[in-house]
């Protein structure tokens, strides 16, 4: 199996151009009124999902750990931001989710969230610690493959059950909403929205750069080696559990930041974001875009979600799950490397056709018969 993904041919200039488009061109177009507020808001959302997709890919595409709990880390980050935002909203008045359960004042764990740096710290610490503890337990006992997926799914399921309870004082199934200001800017202002979009784009570019660097380093090499044959790496003297734990924590924190930027842009956070299907949906983006690449998942996330916003309104709404489900089956069956694998697949197909053509021609006697005209090049 080719460890080097087909997509390594995406050239740096293309990446730089896309980064400039996302970071500069889109905000400028929005400022001049070419792009509507609605579209900009949507793109902010897509980019958050793109970051979430990268965090999944870092685990699944590069380390071979299919985590079905990334939506949990995403939502946790969102809740940390949500706690900051509800502290900012409504002044001295208590939000209804607290008065509803008979509270007359803020629970103590809410108080420090009036400080933004504290909230950011928590965005790192809460998902990071959870990932650390869970990952430590899971990797220590060498839970891997499918078991890891099922356990992370169960973890998410349990957390969702917990967050649906009003007694947790996190808003129950309504979650947090009615946000007002962030860092002193009104969330209703167009300029704040643009600022949030730019922040998301910067984070995306930063995460892409970080992951490019990480996966290109010696660390990335070990990561991929673990994916392909963990035992060999283990027997070569590497503590694979620690490597996996590190990647797991990093990806949890990346997902958490994506969630934190997601919340002020959509204006609500509730536990339905951490339902098990959400994690699976995010995995679809990665698979569709092309796992084992950094840009592929972003492409997958953006294209699937753009398609979803287009298809899930109006007459086609009922067909959206059909389209999503069916396309997923097709991708898994026929495009194991996603959109980013298509050029490689086409090249493989061409090469195979070429070889067949050559074989049909009278070959020189010195040439050995090619006995591998299998479609393996298409479907490795």
């Amino acid at each position: 199996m080719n460890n080097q993904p087909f997509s390594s041919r995406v050239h740096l200039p293309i990446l730089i151009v896309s980064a400039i488009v996302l970071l500069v061109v889109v905000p400028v177009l929005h400022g001049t009124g070419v792009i509507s507020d609605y579209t900009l808001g949507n793109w902010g959302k897509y980019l958050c999902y793109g970051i979430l997709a990268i965090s999944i890919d870092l685990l699944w595409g590069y380390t071979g750990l299919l985590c079905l709990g990334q939506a949990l880390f995403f939502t946790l980050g969102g809740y940390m931001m949500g706690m900051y935002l509800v502290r900012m909203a409504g002044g001295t008045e208590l939000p209804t989710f607290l008065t509803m359960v008979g509270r007359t004042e803020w629970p103590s764990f809410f108080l420090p969230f009036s400080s933004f740096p504290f909230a950011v710290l928590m965005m790192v610490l809460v998902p990071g610690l959870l990932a650390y503890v869970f990952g430590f337990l899971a990797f220590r006992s060498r839970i891997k493959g499918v078991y890891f997926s099922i356990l992370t799914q169960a973890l998410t399921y349990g957390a969702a059950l917990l967050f649906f309870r009003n007694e947790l004082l996190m808003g129950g199934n309504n979650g947090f909403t009615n946000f007002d200001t962030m860092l002193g800017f009104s969330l209703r202002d167009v300029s704040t929205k643009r600022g949030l979009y730019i922040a998301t784009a910067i984070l995306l570019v930063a995460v892409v750069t970080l992951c490019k660097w990480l996966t290109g380093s010696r660390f990335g090499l070990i990561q991929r080696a673990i994916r392909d044959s963990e035992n060999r790496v283990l027997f070569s003297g590497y503590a694979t559990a620690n490597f996996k734990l590190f990647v797991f924590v990093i990806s949890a924190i990346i997902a958490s930041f994506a969630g934190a930027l997601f919340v002020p842009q959509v204006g609500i956070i509730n536990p339905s974001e951490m339902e098990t299907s959400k994690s699976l949906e995010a995995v679809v983006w990665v698979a569709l875009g092309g796992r084992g690449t950094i840009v592929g998942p972003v492409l997958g996330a953006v294209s699937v979600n753009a398609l979803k916003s287009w298809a899930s309104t109006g007459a086609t709404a009922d067909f959206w799950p059909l389209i999503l489900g069916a396309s997923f089956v097709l991708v898994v069956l026929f495009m194991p490397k996603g959109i980013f694998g298509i050029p490689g697949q086409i090249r493989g197909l061409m090469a195979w056709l070429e070889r067949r053509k050559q074989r049909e021609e009278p070959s020189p006697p010195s040439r050995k018969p090619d006995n591998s005209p299998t479609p393996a090049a298409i479907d490795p």
Partner: protein
Amino acid sequence: MLKSIITSLSRRLSTCLMIGLVGLSAGFAQAQEKSVKETIAAATVATTSDEQRELVLTLKLKPTPEAVTWLEKWKAGEIFLHDDGNGVITPVTLTGAEGQDGSFATLKLIDGTPYLAADGKPIVINPKEVEAAETDSGLRRAMKEVSDLVALADPDLAKRLRAIKDSAIGQKLEKLPALQQLRATEKDPDAIHALDESIAIIQLRSTVPAERIAACKKIAEIHSLTAYDTVKTILAEAEKAQDKPMIAAAGEALRSIEGHISRINAVGTAFRGLSLGSVLLVVAIGLAITFGLMGVINMAHGEFIAVGAYTTYVIQNFFADGLKLSPFGVSMSIPGLHLAGGANTYFVFALPASFLIAALVGIALERSVIQFLYKRPLESLLATWGVSLVMQQVLKFIFGSNNVQVSSPAWLSGSWTVNDVLFGWNRVFVIGFAVLIIVITWLVLNKTSLGLLIRAVMQNRNMAACMGVRTERVNTMTFAFGCGLAGLAGAFLSQMANVGPSMGQLYIVDSFMTVVVGGVGNILGTVISALGIGMSDQTFQQYLGNPVLGKILVLGAIILFLQWRPAGLFVTRSRSLD
């Protein structure tokens, strides 16, 4: 106004006359010889309410349902007091059809014969003009006493039990003699138990200290749940009064009841745990085949459950009035057989049908998707999730996105109480069903040639292929078997849970956990883990009093358990690495 005064005066007069006429005195001895109707007739015309009450109370000596019927009529104002103008008042009831001016013919209460005037003409009265016999609260209490007593002697056991249990309310000492009398003649053990309970509870208020202590002892002996609050009050009073022996006796009774309660809770929890475990088992057993034996992560497992449930729904309607569906805009209708008693028998046919339909869908899925993914388990997870989305949507298209109504056969409702523990029939049925499914699975895997092939292929695919086993076909059959079991689970869940297009999502996490904890590739492991998870879930729930926290704790416990046994309860030993 004037008229009423005159009537009331004349009634008093006439009553005196009446008493003289019938030769009645309020003496009980004489009253005993009179018929029920005579007593009631006398009571309706008695002058004072004390007198009326005493007369009514004489009915207690011979409690008959007839007395209750007439007393009820009295209370309802259906007995009228006819004044013949000479001061003679006769209690009568209305009969026949309403006359032109709203009047009715009458019957004499005393013997039920038509009430005739001296000249032989029937007397008609208008109920709006003639006074009805009235009752006051004291009188109604007396009537209640009589009817209570009659209920105590009711030949219907259920009614009698209720009357006995009700008699303890209020701890009226005057009810004791009747209860004790009944206790001497009662034969039914349940009724005897209830009588002992009621007598003891009433005796807690006895004026004799020894009797109170004896009552406490009796309550301790039969650990009556009904007496719990009363005993608590008695204990508090005894403590206030520094009544040492009473404190000891009441404390003893209270401890005995509390012990009984905790025993009931323990048995109830164990039973509920067993039935929850059985549900998990039924739901997970199909997955134990497809995931455990074959290694296919079938995320569409829940949708196969839904397929089974919907098949049950269709069969139910097929047996009754038929069903109209409009999938994808095409309207189709399934004719109904209109079978009498179909509601009770359809389920027997629905079980095999849902197995078959789910198995057929399983074959289609295996041939079209799964067979290409045997070497890529993680990708089978993703592809089958896509399949589950598609299946949910297709079910929505066919049956609509709302839940559909599946009725349970009558023999699944009701319950059975043993020693204060409630055993619901449907829970008992769950356990039986789980046992049945395990037996079927075990038989198929161990006693049929298909089972032999399945085991051979799962243990060593290449070797089996070398021996001439058509492994592809065995894979298909195995997958279909697993899906069929999921369909069976669906048929069964349709009896106790909602049937909707996304019902399968509720069970998917639980089923995977059950199989993982049990150890992949081992049916026995799945059985033990299902029961274990069910039991611990109910136990946590019992102690925390909160189902959600209980579930979260169970999930936590499972993660910790896998620390200890990463490959589940039963490990399939192998020398190969990965």
